């Protein structure tokens, strides 16, 4: 069985990559002047881990039949996905400057490769709550063909308010889809407020368990902890597994951290400067250098 065609990074490399992805997100959003900061920053460690360690995939051949499938059900987290895909080599990193602009492949919410041409995106998302069902269909199809590929789907916690997810969870467990692993970005925040204010989700693990899932909890910012949970999920037979990863919205940027008001707002110039000053440059290098004096003229 062919292995992943990307080089795996070690824990330190994954952390460094996560920080780079965070820098990329800040820069992308500063340029686009529209989009989501909080959620994407919060799952940078998860995306780094997934694309540089967990997933079997081939960025140069995004339709590689042996690939694992990754679905981003919470489509508004697109910026972190795009930055990660670009870093992994799916498309030119310079393209990150086009986020949300007219004629871009980097749509505000992900649009699939074969309609909009962005490699790495399997299917559209943005209207919340639809990814679980898609992942279930994909996992059933792979099993029918006796293929070993795994299916991953990432949900926001607020997204779990949508009933369709619970329908899909039931079906996944009904068919014992152990080739399916869900990841929940448990940041306790959604748009209007903290999740317990908008719609109580606790006891969340009990909910998943009662729906027939193998539940793993972890700290979504401790990369070894997350990888460990994914490892256990892969080993668990007979049931689908979920990794409930505790994260902080806006992670890595002090003034955004754990603040739901950063769900859907891009940083302004001042804020972007401050954010980048908190996120040290990495060996991977930025995809664009701003001329702060000229207030971004170079970028626009």
């Amino acid at each position, binding site marked *: 069985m062919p292995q992943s065609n990307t080089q795996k990074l070690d824990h330190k490399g994954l952390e460094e990559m996560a920080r780079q992805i965070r820098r990329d997100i800040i820069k992308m959003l500063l340029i686009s002047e529209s989009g989501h900061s909080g959620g994407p920053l919060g799952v940078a460690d998860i995306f780094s881990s997934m694309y540089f360690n967990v997933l079997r995939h081939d960025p140069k051949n995004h339709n590689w039949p042996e690939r694992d499938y990754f679905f981003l059900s919470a489509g508004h987290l697109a910026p972190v996905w795009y930055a990660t895909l670009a870093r992994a080599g799916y498309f030119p990193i310079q393209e990150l400057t086009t986020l949300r602009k007219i004629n871009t492949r980097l749509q505000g919410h992900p649009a699939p490769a074969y309609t909009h041409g962005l490699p790495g995106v399997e299917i559209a998302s943005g209207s919340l709550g639809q990814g679980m069902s898609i992942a279930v*269909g994909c996992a*059933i199809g792979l099993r029918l063909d006796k293929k070993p590929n795994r299916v991953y789907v990432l949900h926001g916690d607020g997204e779990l308010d949508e009933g369709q997810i619970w329908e899909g969870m039931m079906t996944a467990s009904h068919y014992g889809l152990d080739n399916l692993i869900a990841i929940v970005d448990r940041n306790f925040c959604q748009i209007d407020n903290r999740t317990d204010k908008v719609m109580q989700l606790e006891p969340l693990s009990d909910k998943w368990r009662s729906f027939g899932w193998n539940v793993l909890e972890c700290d979504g910012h401790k990369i070894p902890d997350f990888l460990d949970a994914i490892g256990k999920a892969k080993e668990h037979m007979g049931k689908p597994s979920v990794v409930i990863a505790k994260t902080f919205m806006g992670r890595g940027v002090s003034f955004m951290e754990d603040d739901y008001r950063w769900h859907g707002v891009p940083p302004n110039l001042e804020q972007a400067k401050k954010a980048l000053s908190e996120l040290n440059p990495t060996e991977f290098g930025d995809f664009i250098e701003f001329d702060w004096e000229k207030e971004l003229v170079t970028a626009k």
Partner: protein
Amino acid sequence: MSLIQSKGEKATRQGFSDALMELGKENPDVVVLGGDVSGSVKVDAFAKAYPDRFFSVGVAEADMMGIAAGLALVGKIPIASAYGEFAAGRPFDQIRQSIAYSEMPVKICASHSGITVGPDGATHQSLEDMALMRVLPHMTVISPCDYLETKRAVKASLGITKGPVYMRYFRDNTPMFTDESTPFEIGKANTLAEGKDATVIAAGLQVWEAVQAAEELLKEKISVRVLNMHTIKPLDKQAILKAAKETGAIVTAEDHQIHCGLGSAVAEYLAQSMPTPQEFVAVNDTFGESGNGKDLMKKYGIDKDAIISAVKRVLKRKK
């Protein structure tokens, strides 16, 4: 003299079922999704013959559409089966994003469409589904007229490999009047009767009503062309334009709300090409009710008699 003979009755949903059985045999990628109405929509035969390619998803139509999209993604040919309202209305946003916008080659097969669902009443009578599916980009919408045409349409739909297909058909047994020699091509209307005074453009069960209406009108020396517009989208504009030019008066007939359905599609196109007097035979912006199919077709004005009066009305308006 009769324009076309019918040879007994059979349900359009049976046509779907029989097509499935053939497809199951011919194509190992065909998989069927059932939403706890397998007997009614007649996917039970497939489920029995190909148990490993049939998946029960429970009473969860939104989930069904997502699962279909996921299956399509890995190369399967998913057939999502449900009643009209639960196939189109309940999972609309899921169809929109995961299937239509994502251009997934899913076949959405809706039995129990229209008012002839009958005794179950309004909640189960999908009179809005053609609107919902027609307004979606990338969607092909087909409404076959009898058992055999349904069977052929289902089989032909596998030829559409980019983007989804929505197919609506019916519960009741209805006259069989097409045969293998009847032309059938997705997107191409079929002329069932020639005529010069007016054209009835019909879909689904109203095609047979239109044929009967044309026959009766012939006795009154009114010569009516009958077009079977089995494909609502993409619309056969050429056939419509030809009808407008040659007969100068149009009646549309469908088992659907008067708004946004077949009649609406024809009116949209003619307004842009050749404005022509048109009368609508359709359910007049009201919900249905319980009753048997035939009685309801009469009460809600979508039967042969309604078509006859509509033809007479439109002839008065013809210049």
